[in-house]
């Protein structure tokens, strides 16, 4: 039985990270916005929904929607400096935004309980689902969310809006010369991405039932980047496959640690080294990732 539980846990985590990778891919792969602070959306989503439920007793549905809205608003805030910063400088600014969000969570203890984290996050629909079936139920819930987000984002990227985003990614000046308000488009893209990131954060919080600033270190953003580099940018299938590959490796090696004669610290470091090497190999030998961006054909 434990092995089945572990597999369900692994799949659920893959699912949650797929959402984060899809959101990041929407920014990087479609709009060319190099966001190194993706974890901020995850963090805001997790904290908003869990605090609203634990401290304020708000219904879970409302808490999820509020979390998505707040992450979306944070996406809007993050997009403001794109007006004056070139993409590489903006990327550095996003790295800072990710850390700022985590540090606020760590230090504003009156709201977030600081380093102790938010405890006692209830399970959704706990009374209606038999205890044994709960992990499977939650996995199905996450999968349903992935399907909805996949459809939602694909509808956007296949629309004139998505075409504008791709054009910003490839030639921003051309967009301007064709009368596109690129600033506005980037802002909208960041709101969309933030909303999806907030959903992932909420799903994570209500799955793990305990969150602390430890969950939202910059390394998480690094993992999400590894996912879209390995999986491929400019398509959402790639983001999901990347999440599968990276999470499979990342989560399963945590448990393999028991069978390898290395301390857990060295194991953790070694794991990141291997992911780093994987990224380098992909960038050198398969820069487009496992799944290439699909050409859009009109007929």
């Amino acid at each position: 039985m434990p092995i089945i539980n572990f597999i369900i846990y692994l799949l659920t985590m893959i699912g949650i990270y797929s959402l984060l990778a899809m959101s990041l891919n929407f920014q990087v792969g479609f709009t060319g916005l190099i966001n190194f602070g993706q974890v901020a959306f995850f963090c805001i989503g997790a904290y908003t929904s869990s605090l609203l439920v634990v401290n304020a007793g708000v219904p879970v549905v409302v808490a999820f929607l509020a979390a998505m809205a707040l992450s979306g608003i944070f996406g809007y805030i993050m997009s403001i400096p794109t007006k004056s910063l070139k993409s590489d400088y903006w990327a550095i600014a996003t790295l800072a935004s990710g850390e700022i969000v985590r540090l606020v969570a760590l230090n504003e203890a009156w709201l977030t309980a600081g380093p102790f984290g938010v405890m006692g996050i209830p399970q959704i629909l706990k009374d209606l689902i038999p205890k044994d079936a709960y992990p499977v139920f939650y996995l199905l819930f996450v999968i349903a969310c992935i399907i909805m987000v996949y459809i939602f984002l694909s509808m956007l990227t296949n629309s004139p809006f998505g075409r504008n985003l791709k054009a910003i990614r490839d030639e921003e000046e051309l967009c301007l010369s064709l009368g596109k308000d690129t600033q506005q488009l980037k802002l909208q893209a960041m709101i969309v991405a933030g909303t999806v990131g907030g959903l992932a954060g909420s799903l994570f919080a209500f799955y793990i039932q305990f969150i602390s600033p430890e969950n939202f270190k910059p390394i998480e953003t690094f993992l999400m980047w590894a996912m879209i580099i390995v999986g491929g940018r400019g398509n959402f299938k790639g983001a999901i496959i990347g999440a599968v590959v990276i999470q499979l490796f990342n989560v399963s090696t945590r448990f393999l640690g028991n069978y390898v004669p290395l301390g857990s610290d060295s194991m953790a470091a070694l794991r990141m080294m291997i992911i780093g090497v994987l990224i380098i190999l992909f960038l050198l030998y398969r820069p487009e990732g496992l799944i290439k961006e699909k050409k859009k054909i009109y007929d």
Partner: protein
Amino acid sequence: MLTIKNLEKRFGSLKALDDVSVEVEDDCIVGLIGPNGSGKTTLFNVVSGFYEKDGGEIFFKGARIDGLPPNKIAKKGLCRTFQVSKAPEKMTVLENMLLAAEHQIGEDPFSALFMRSRVQKSEKTNLERALELLDMLQLSQLKNDYAGDLSGGQKKLLSLGRVFMLKPDMILLDEPTAGVNPTLRVQLMEAIRQLQKMERKAFFIIEHSMKVISSICDKVYVLNFGQKIAEGTPEEIQQNEQVLEAYLSGA
């Protein structure tokens, strides 16, 4: 249509544009020539809002446009192409054409999601126009190729196609025929002529080929070292001592 008054642009101590005044009347084709580095592209960059001016005024259809961002100027109906063509690498030729289409529905997330039938309708109309234009520009064969894979000349043609999709009132063309083969060049010029006659659009064209200039332009301005040294009909310009000297000494 376009009035440029005493325009100035400096890069450090270099006066890239020095007191340049230009007038482009409604439905006519005006040429802009001058040796390399004389300020032609700078003039375009200032007029289209990509550079900030250091002095002077620009009026388009009677309203001041200097100081506006490029996208606002384009929206007002003044559109430009670039000397080094910009072609979104991972977008097909057709996608490029549709990108430029005017009055699109579905350019923001909300309408993209909730007005899908209207979006599809406008896409269909734009697609038809795009295919027509590609036919005229002899790019039909390449419609599903990535714009990044086109040759330099083909990218020039694509920029023209995009501008035509946008249907602006006035078009600034920065060396539209550089790198285009001679037969097609003649056809292009013919297309520009036709468009100007049929849809009464104004053109302002930077061009090096005197042949092209004299075959289609109603009026020509000549820049040298950021200053306007001559203006007149193509015949007048070809006789102008100063112009000949600028071109010969520049070479």
